[in-house]
């Protein structure tokens, strides 16, 4: 490898040169930062400025560049140099725009800028530019599990894009739930009449598509590997097993209808009370003619009861049924009511609803049913009795009175229960017990395993982690379409409740994500949110104590164990959050361009003023996803915060290794503040668990601080959202004031 050559470029544009002494910063970069080349430029991001850097890379063999200018989030296109490691010292958003203007602040402003230059130089020296791990053979085929509307759509979209799809369906035919319908809700203008489902055409197209390989009557016996190299054992009902190698997986395993037997008060199980799926069966039998009940009697009056066993209170608040809205059933009842009206307008058709929720163009469909004479009654059904003449008792919510209607048939709009496989939260304790030799746990484990869909051989469990209510979702805002298993995407009602139209959109999204995943995997690129990142974690196994913290804490199940029980990193599953690096007590995990050293050296690079100077120093470790942008935006809005803070962006609070905190305290910082995303059930952490883990780890650091003779308040953790640009300022300023009250750190001068 060629020798490293370090260069620093300081921009004096955007007013930096007016507010700061750039020559002094240059001197620091040269002397303290030990940069071989140091240049300043009045407009570094313009073509000429950028060319200066490019020339040095080409002619002077510069390998490492520190750019002291604007935030690392600005001018990313201008400052992009292939194959060169780069750090950014934030003099504009981080100093110029946030330190109060005026001569009296010149000194602290200059000190802050100087420290950022020191930090930028220190960081870049510890960095290596990741080359990316290009795979020689990486599969670009995509497995689709489930042959319903979502799965068929995903397979067709994948094939239409030119990729190969392997479609696995448990039953003997394609179509899933949609195939069980008489008609579907309209997809097109004027949204006025139910349409043919289109399943047969789709199935025929799939059968004729050379890019789609179809396995009917098949399930997944095992999934191993990682994106780009998943190995799937496809088990046929007959017992034969076929091995398929794929690069990514779309899980479109749909839903099961909520069991009507759980709704005896609404007539579940009684004669002439059916659920929506039951009505579809009757409509299919009628085949366009008069719909007849099971006893053969023609239906002359029908009542639909919406939200049956849905939108209940949460379990913890005493609810028994589904607490969510399945989203499709209002539209489905409207559609089913028109089955009757279209056949015979004289059939009394009443829909008893609490709120009618018709997303998309459903409002037009609703209107069309009203025009056909379907009666909509706003009310809450309390009791249904089946029989020859069914009775629906409900409270009329408009007229505020109890009412009862009689009908030949009652249809309950029950909800969707996702087919998401094994719930890992229940699974993991059982497995731990089973591994410990508990016989009952072993039986329980084997029992649980029977519902697994993917049968992943991951250390973290056989299926995807579930989010709320058992859906295999993750976080729609932080990971649109992403899940917590890289390269595996949930689509359709297994992800969240939805109707057919939404499922087809969802499947298209998941197909595109899967394509992205196989392409990323082939060149060793990360997926969202560090899309494009070529770095990946490696562990110096000589130092590893096999504590397994990394394996357990990785939010994405990227780490397995090898035969010697050392952590085995599956780079393709990794999201590059650094949570493993933060977890490792012996600090053997690192990335080429992000490590205990790249941050640690920055922590140590700054100059700590003497105690009597009364200039405290506070380290802020800010998550790059939300907190750091919020701080940049505070600068953009010219909000002032204390010039005593030194901010280091981190990939995720989960990547914060406690050594940075102890190092900072030992070197005489007066306090450390961590800013990360919201944790807990409504988390906004872009890596799901990072922020939570950081809070947990920090709750344990109190003892260490006390041993050092330090107050525990000297280390705080804050939850910050990207919109908090005002709040971050208050948080910083309040904390600085609090630390000033606490007095200087007793560690000063020992560092």
């Amino acid at each position, binding site marked *: 490898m060629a020798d490293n050559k370090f260069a620093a470029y300081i921009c004096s544009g955007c007013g930096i040169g007016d507010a700061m002494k750039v020559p002094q910063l240059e001197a620091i970069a040269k002397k303290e930062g030990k940069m071989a080349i140091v240049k300043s430029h009045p407009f570094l991001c313009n073509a000429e400025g950028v060319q200066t850097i490019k020339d040095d890379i080409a002619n002077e063999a510069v390998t490492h560049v520190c750019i002291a200018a604007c935030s690392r989030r600005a001018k990313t296109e201008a400052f992009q140099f292939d194959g060169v490691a780069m750090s950014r010292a934030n003099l504009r958003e981080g100093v110029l725009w946030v330190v109060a203007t005026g001569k009296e602040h010149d000194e602290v402003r200059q000190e802050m800028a100087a420290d950022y230059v020191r930090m930028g130089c220190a960081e870049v020296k510890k960095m290596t530019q990741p080359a990316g791990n290009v795979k020689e053979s990486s599969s670009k085929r995509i497995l689709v599990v489930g042959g319903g509307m979502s799965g068929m759509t995903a397979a067709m979209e994948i094939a239409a894009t030119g990729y190969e799809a392997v479609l696995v369906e448990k039953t003997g035919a394609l179509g899933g739930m949609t195939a069980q319908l008489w008609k579907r809700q309209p997809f097109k203008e004027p949204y006025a009449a139910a349409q043919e489902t289109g399943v047969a055409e789709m199935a025929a197209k799939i059968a004729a598509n050379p890019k789609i390989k179809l396995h009917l009557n098949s399930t997944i016996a095992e999934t191993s590997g990682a994106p780009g190299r998943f190995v799937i054992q496809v088990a046929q009902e007959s017992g034969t097993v076929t091995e398929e190698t794929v690069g990514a997986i779309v899980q479109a395993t749909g839903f099961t209808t909520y069991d009507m037997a759980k709704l005896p008060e609404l007539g579940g199980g009684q004669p002439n009370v059916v659920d929506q799926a039951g009505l579809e069966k009757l409509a299919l039998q009628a085949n366009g003619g008069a719909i007849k009940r099971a006893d053969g009697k023609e239906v002359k009056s029908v009542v639909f009861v919406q939200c049956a066993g849905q939108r209940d209170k949460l379990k913890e608040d005493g609810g028994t049924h589904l607490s969510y809205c399945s989203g499709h059933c209002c539209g489905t009842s409207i559609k089913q009511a028109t089955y009757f009206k279209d056949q015979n307008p004289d059939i009394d058709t009443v829909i008893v609803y609490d709120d*009618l929720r018709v997303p998309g163009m459903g409002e037009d469909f*609703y*209107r069309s049913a*009203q*025009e056909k*004479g379907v*009666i*909509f*009654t*706003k009310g809450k059904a309390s009791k249904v009795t089946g029989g020859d003449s069914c009775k629906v008792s409900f409270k*009329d919510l*408009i*007229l505020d009175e109890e*009412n009862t209607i009689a009908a030949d048939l009652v249809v309950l709009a029950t909800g969707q229960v996702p087919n998401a496989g094994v719930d890992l939260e229940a699974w993991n304790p059982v497995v731990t017990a089973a591994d410990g030799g508990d016989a009952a746990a072993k039986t329980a484990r084997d029992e649980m395993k029977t519902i697994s869909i993917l049968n992943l051989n991951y250390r973290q469990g056989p299926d995807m982690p579930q989010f709320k209510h058992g859906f295999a979702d993750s976080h729609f805002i932080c990971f649109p379409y992403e899940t917590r298993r890289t390269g595996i995407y949930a689509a359709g009602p297994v992800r969240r409740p939805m109707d057919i139209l939404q499922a087809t959109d969802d499947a298209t999204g998941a197909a595109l994500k899967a394509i992205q995943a196989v392409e990323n995997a082939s060149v060793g690129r990360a997926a969202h949110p560090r899309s494009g990142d070529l770095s990946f974690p490696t562990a110096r196994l000589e130092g590893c104590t096999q504590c397994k913290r990394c394996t357990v804490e990785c939010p994405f199940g990227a780490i397995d164990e090898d035969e010697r029980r050392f952590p085995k990193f599956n780079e393709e599953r990794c999201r590059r959050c650094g949570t493993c690096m933060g977890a490792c007590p012996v600090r053997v995990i690192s990335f080429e361009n992000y490590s205990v050293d790249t941050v640690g050296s920055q922590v140590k690079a700054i100059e700590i003023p003497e105690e009597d100077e009364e200039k405290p120093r506070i380290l802020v470790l800010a998550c790059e996803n939300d907190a750091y942008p919020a701080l940049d935006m505070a600068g953009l809005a010219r909000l002032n915060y204390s010039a005593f803070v030194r901010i280091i962006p981190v990939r995720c609070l989960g990547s914060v290794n406690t050594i940075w905190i102890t190092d900072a305290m030992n070197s005489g910082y007066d306090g450390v503040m961590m800013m990360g995303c919201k944790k807990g059930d409504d988390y906004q952490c872009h890596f799901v668990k990072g922020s939570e883990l950081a809070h947990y780890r920090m709750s344990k650091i109190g003892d260490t601080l006390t041993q050092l003779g330090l107050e525990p308040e000297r280390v705080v953790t804050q939850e910050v959202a990207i919109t908090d640009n005002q709040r971050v300022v208050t948080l910083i300023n309040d904390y600085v004031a609090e630390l000033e009250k606490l007095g200087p750190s007793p560690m000063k001068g020992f560092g």
Partner: protein
Amino acid sequence: MTTANQSAVERYRNNFLKEVEANVEEGHMVKMCMQCGVCAGSCPLGNAWEHSPQKIFMMIRAGKRDEVLGSDSMFMCTSCYNCIVRCPRQLPITHIMHGLANYAHRLNLAPKGQPTRDFATLFWNNAIKKGRVNELTLTLGHYFTNGLVSGIKMALSMQSIGLGLFLAKRLNPMEIFGGHGVKDLKGFHAIVAKAKEIEDRKKGFSA
């Protein structure tokens, strides 16, 4: 009238919505109401009546014939059109309210002694007599609806206004003796009779 009511009940049995659709002006739009309550919240008189338009429409769909046709609500509508302007489903609410009032009145199910209904009747009878409204007889008729004593009290309390109107030549005391009519009074009466015949036929009162 009772016969008209009975025959309507028989014809539509318990389907009051169908009855409204067939007999009430714009009644076919009642089924399009989505119960959002915007009309109820928009009506400046909302809390002065028994049922808001939203409730009336819900009651129609629930088959509450007696309650709807006996409600005072439709008579309280001032035709301000607030509800029409705001209804997201574009129901001609004001027109439906008047249509319902008219239907209830004709079936003689509308509330007795309802002041708006009484005044409207007075107005109508006054207007068709001569083809124009005789303000004096109309006003006096209105004052005396509740009996002689209250009529005199009312008339006395309005004395100064009457005097003012007289001085401004807006009121002619001679009108009390019948007043003047339209030029072709006979023709006018023929028009009214024909109109009634058409409406009766349309609304099924042709008996």
